[in-house]
């Protein structure tokens, strides 16, 4: 999968490049709108990550020109302006999704996956990790064959973690996807932490191999210990 990142801030650009490369994408970085436009129109890409605020030709302009030439590939827009008008302008210009800076890398990665997966049937969630099993229909959880009683919220939380198995999910993603809390200004981080702690108590505490891990400063992940 080839991704073009058009981002003028060198640190951010480099971090995105390295982070996405670590997720096995083939990443090209363009520091200006002109260069990005040139690359996008001369090479095939599967997705473009486009910063709106660029020196010279800004992101919206690049995007609308690209769309006029008939380019159909998904575009994820990055914006520092948390204003409805900018989002609308971006989406009008043909962006498929947008992300407000500062964002968690985990979030960007999840959005990219979602855009690349778009139109294709969702891959069935792994329902088994190590000895943890989830029955998504009956909404039950078991570990080592033992039934674990979880609340509805804990089930949703676990399901989200399991669907993103091996990847880190941020508290922000959890707040939005599990708690449906759209505003980043609502403080429910401590709520999330307590839920994760309880879930961990139920599915990990009595077992030697821990599955739910906290990645300090980023969020949580579920993975099988090697």
């Amino acid at each position, binding site marked *: 999968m080839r991704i073009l990142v058009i981002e003028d801030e060198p640190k951010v650009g480099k971090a995105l490049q390295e982070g996405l490369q670590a997720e096995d994408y083939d990443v090209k970085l363009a520091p200006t709108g002109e260069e990005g436009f040139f690359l996008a129109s001369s090479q095939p890409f599967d997705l473009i990550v486009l910063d709106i605020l660029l020196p010279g030709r800004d992101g919206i302009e690049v995007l609308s020109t690209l769309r006029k030439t008939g380019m159909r590939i998904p575009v994820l827009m990055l914006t520092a302006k*948390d*204003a*409805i008008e900018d989002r609308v302008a971006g989406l009008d210009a043909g962006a498929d999704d947008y992300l407000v800076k*500062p964002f968690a890398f985990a979030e960007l990665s999840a959005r990219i996956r979602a855009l690349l997966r778009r139109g294709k049937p969702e891959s069935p969630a792994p329902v088994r990790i190590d000895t943890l099993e989830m029955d998504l229909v009956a909404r039950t959880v078991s570990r080592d064959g033992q039934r674990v009683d979880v609340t509805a919220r804990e089930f949703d939380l676990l399901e989200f973690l399991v669907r993103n198995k091996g990847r880190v999910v941020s*508290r922000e993603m959890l707040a939005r996807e599990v*708690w449906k*809390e*759209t*505003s*980043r*200004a*609502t*403080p*429910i*981080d*401590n*709520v999330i932490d*307590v*839920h994760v702690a*309880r879930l961990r108590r139920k599915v990990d505490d009595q077992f030697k191999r821990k599955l739910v891990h906290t*990645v*300090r*400063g*980023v969020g949580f992940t579920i993975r099988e210990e090697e």
Partner: protein
Amino acid sequence: MNALGRISIRGRLTLLYVALLSLVLVLYAAGASAFLLRNLREQLDHRLNEDVETIEGLLALDSNGHIQLMTENLDEDARDLRPHFLEVWSATGSVLYRSPQLGERDLGTPPTQAANPGRIGQRSVQLADGTCVRIVGRRHSIDGTPVRIRLGLSEEPLWREFWQMVSALAIGLPIGLLLIGGAGYAVARRALQPLDSMAKRAEEITAERLGERLPIGNPDDELGHLARVFNETLGRLERSFEQLRRFTADASHELRTPLTAIRSVGEVSLQKTGDAEYYRDIVGSMLEEANRLTRLVDSLLTMSRADAGRIPLQYTEFPLLDLAKEAAGVIEILAEEKNQSMIIEGDHRVVVRGDRLILRQALINLLDNAVKYSPEGGRVEIRVGSDASEAFVDVRDSGPGIPLEHRSRVFDRFYRVDKSRSRGEGGAGLGLSISEWAVHAHGGRVELDCDHGPGCTFRIRIPIGQDANRKIGERVL
């Protein structure tokens, strides 16, 4: 009008009343002159009539049968008759007598229409040499011969007097107008002078010196009113500048705290050598602070967009109790961790119209606070109800209450009752102000009651029914 627009107000005022005054004065002068002229003519006519009667008595036929004016025996008085122009015509239209004063002057032919005997007719005639003459004609008979007497008197003295009067007016009027105009200008200037000094004072008042006020001369007159209104505006401006200054100072202070943490953690870690685990921990710790910064910036942005009225509300109707349960469902777990009981009760029929997400945020903030400030094992009560025009949600904690001096400021941005509370625990101090904004946006208000029982009650009030629509409409407009 445009040219007039460029002149100062006092210039315009002066021009206007000088114009009005000249109109009045010119009309008055014209009237007075006309009146004078009429009076002078009447006097002249009166004199002519008297004189014509005198002359009738003096006319006689001499030995040759010619008509003569017998003036030899007259006294001084009657000699005044001499400047008169006198003609005597026969009934057939031939001149019988011309006074020597007439010389070559021609009074013109008398009107031919038959006038009644004794009837006097007057008219003014301008002679060929330019002299204006007032003429009186009269029928008469001398020794049985019918004649027509025409007596004329120069109008020159009359016109001289008239023009003297007119020229006196013509000279006096502009001088008077000039004087009045000057005085008017001075008066206008004096009346408007406080405006000038107000403008000067106002110019000196800048963002740095908003504490200054305009002097109010007479609070009851127009200028005093203006100064008062201006001062009130200044007061509002000063308050909002002060708010802005405090907000900026507080915000930078809040931003500085996590920045300091990031910096010192990073610097210290570089001075040491540690294993990968150590560095992961350091980076994680720095990311935590970065997250705190992110959230702070998000809150600030939310607030600035709210201030600018740029958060559009998505209205739906829903039972308030449902929203309360939903918010409690989010926060409940925090109460459980502190062994607190969270109790929800209320009327399910209370339905409000509003932006569910924004109101939910407001309620979550209140509940989060209530749990935070209630002790281990305490209780948090949520009650939903309504009265005639408003729906309300009470959030009651079992905390220590809020000291009186803090109550009025708890909704202020960045305001923390307990300054010693850590930022992690106490948040940035924006929660309540965001809640208050959210409720205000719905035309409602948040009340704080700390006087009844232990703990405090925050009450969200939202107007319902037609009242609600009206108030919401006002907010949106």
